[in-house]
């Protein structure tokens, strides 16, 4: 269902929700946000529960860092301690840390909901059509998205070429020195590739300021208004309850 919502409307709702998650320092609000995101992904978007759980892992690791930092260096977190003093997680420091931990997951899950239910091409087209995003910037974004897998493939080729010179197969995961040494050649590759893409786009008529058709750009509908209004009402209720 969420995939059919206009990308710009969805982006706006998710942005407002992220701002709320940052400003509302209450565990209940963060838990509710996580729960809503999980329900949307599992029940409505039919994503496997294990996949959704796995999505939380990196955000949880980040959150654990915040939790331990807050607990160990509580003198530095005066504001958070005062806000979390009434939270039901033992000491104020631990309460503040738990809220920060939950907030990391909540923000991550709101972002995941957006990314997993939004077609990047639709988003960029909608931004060009409704938000006057310059086509040059829009198509540069397209090219950048296409560049990512090619950069990975190029990195693997460079690693193989180096492995050949050193007469041993490359390690499955490159070490820090090898990774650092890939930066310059990959940057050179990206620059050359971007130059060629720019030439291709220009010869196909992409010009600054010229009127152009945008084929298949998502059009806002009443459904989007209902979605936005419902989301804002729910958010207001959760903020009030927190």
């Amino acid at each position, binding site marked *: 269902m969420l995939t059919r919502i206009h990308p710009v409307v969805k982006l706006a709702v998710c942005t407002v929700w992220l701002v709320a998650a940052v400003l509302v320092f209450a565990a209940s609000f963060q838990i509710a946000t996580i729960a809503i995101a999980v329900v949307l992904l599992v029940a409505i978007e039919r994503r496997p529960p294990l996949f959704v759980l796995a999505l939380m892992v990196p955000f949880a690791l980040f959150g654990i860092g915040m939790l331990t930092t807050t607990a160990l260096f509580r003198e530095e977190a005066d504001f958070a301690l005062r806000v979390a003093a009434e939270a039901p997680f033992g000491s104020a420091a631990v309460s503040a840390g738990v809220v920060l931990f939950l907030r990391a997951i909540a923000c991550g899950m709101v972002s995941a909901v957006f990314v997993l239910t939004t077609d990047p091409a639709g988003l960029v087209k909608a931004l060009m059509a409704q938000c006057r995003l310059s086509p040059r910037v829009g198509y540069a974004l397209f090219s950048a998205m296409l560049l990512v897998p090619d950069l990975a493939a190029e990195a693997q080729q460079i690693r193989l070429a180096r492995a050949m010179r050193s007469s041993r197969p490359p390690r499955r995961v490159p070490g820090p020195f090898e990774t650092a040494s890939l930066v310059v050649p990959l940057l050179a590759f990206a620059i050359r590739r971007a130059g060629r893409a720019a030439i291709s786009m220009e*010869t196909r008529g992409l010009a600054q300021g010229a009127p152009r058709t945008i084929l298949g750009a998502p059009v806002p509908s009443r459904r989007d208004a209902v979605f936005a209004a419902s989301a804002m009402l729910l958010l207001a209720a959760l903020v009030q309850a927190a």
Partner: protein
Amino acid sequence: MTCAPSAPEAAAPASWRAVTVRYPFRGADAVGPVTLAVRPGERVLLLGPTGSGKSSLLNALTGIVPGIVPAEIGGDVLLMGEAASNRPPSGWSAEAARLFQDADQTLCGMRVGDEIAFALENRALPEPEILRRIEVAMRRAGLVDAMRDRRTATLSGGEKQLVALAAALAQETPLFIADEPTAHLAPLAAARFRAVLDADTGSRAFIVVDHRIDDLAGCFDRVVVVGANGGIAADGPPRTVFRERFADLRALGVAMPAAADLDACLRDAGVAPSVPPLTVSEALETLDPAPAALGAVRAFLRGRVASPAERPGETVARLENAACAPLFGPVVLRGVDLAVRAGEAVAILGPNGAGKTTLTASLAGLLRLKSGRRHGALGGVAFQNPETQFIGGSVIEEIRQSLNGKHIRTKDRNAAADAAQQILAHWGLSTLSAAHPYELSQGQKRRLALVSLTATDRWPLLVLDEPTAGLDAAGARMVAEAVDGFRAARRAVAVVTHDLDFALMTCPRAVIVADGGIIADGPTAELLADAALLARAGLAAPPVMQALSWLERHTQC
């Protein structure tokens, strides 16, 4: 030599009048002076040795040079009768469509439909017209409608090239320019491009630069050859140019269809057809199998079908029941059993995306197997993208590093420098020794990558991945001679290629990769004569096979 247009100049889709192109900090012109006009509806094949400036001429036509790439242009470049410099490059998209060599580097739409629509959206055409053009262009390029919503990142190399072709066709411009459109295409995809040329009999003019022209030569009205000095070396109908200027073009190292070589042999024997042939089948269809003709066909085939090694060498590398996968990727080939011996050259053939590169990297020991075993020493690989290999700041430094590694003893430096210069001279790269490897043309980069790999005898197994892509005939001949040299030096060679003539010429044995494994392994000539096998693998027999089977048929008689 120059060519004056017979039609009024204002109507010429493209014309160059005494045009020269000189890039900054270069002492000489990259091309020119060139005077040339292309008439409406004319199909022109633009040939020339690597680095002769063909791409510079095309870039000047659409304003890429000097609009985007700085250069000094002399003379007049006219597009549809108007000076190319009057508009920015983007202003010509309604007049000239350009198909670039590497589709991968030019895609800018997320989905196939977006990619084809891009130029039309930029012209602000109405949506129904864009949708109509997308449908027509996809059909002409052989793309099924279900592909319209596929993300271009998920397409194979050949499919991407067909999408780029559809995008250029959709522009419906009076001039269509293609720069090596078949360089990275499997034969069946290349045949699609030929079908497009054949079917387009309207007023649209075509200018095509390519080095693989066996299947395309018959599609053109005119061949124009840019010489090594940057001027026009030959200009005329293909049949006339390839017969009458055969010796000159061969000396220039320009790609010619195999039929031109066969025609030369038949002329030497006094049995040539009255009309110069453009395909091998044309040359053979009326040929009387008299002894003189048999001798001429034998002479044509001499050196075009590789002979097996006189004594089979020891196994250099072997894969045993191997499951091969790219780094971080899933298994693409299973149950692979493959051994290569010293003095042997094996062609690795198959459609785009079949896993040929993964197979050879596994054979060379650069990729760890998911299961199965590998035996033998590590191999050296000349990668498909030659830039991947370069580590030196100049051409000469690249060779020196290959010869000696990074830690050269002081007293050996002069000797290494001399050896490097000799190698560069042998491969025709001496004049470029101070240039940065990235500044070279695609063909020159490929040669440099090959030289740097083979400068030492460090690797008993050499893998050459698409070694002839972007090379002119002289460059391809040089690579073929190099492969013969490696075999004579008892090194094993695996050649991944779409150029089946090259495979037949250099590799007595071939392996065909398709359907997630090796589907055939045997003598190259036998495999390429098996029509059912080739169809299964999406390949098409090279023209030389027609001469081979003609000879076998008439010798048996």
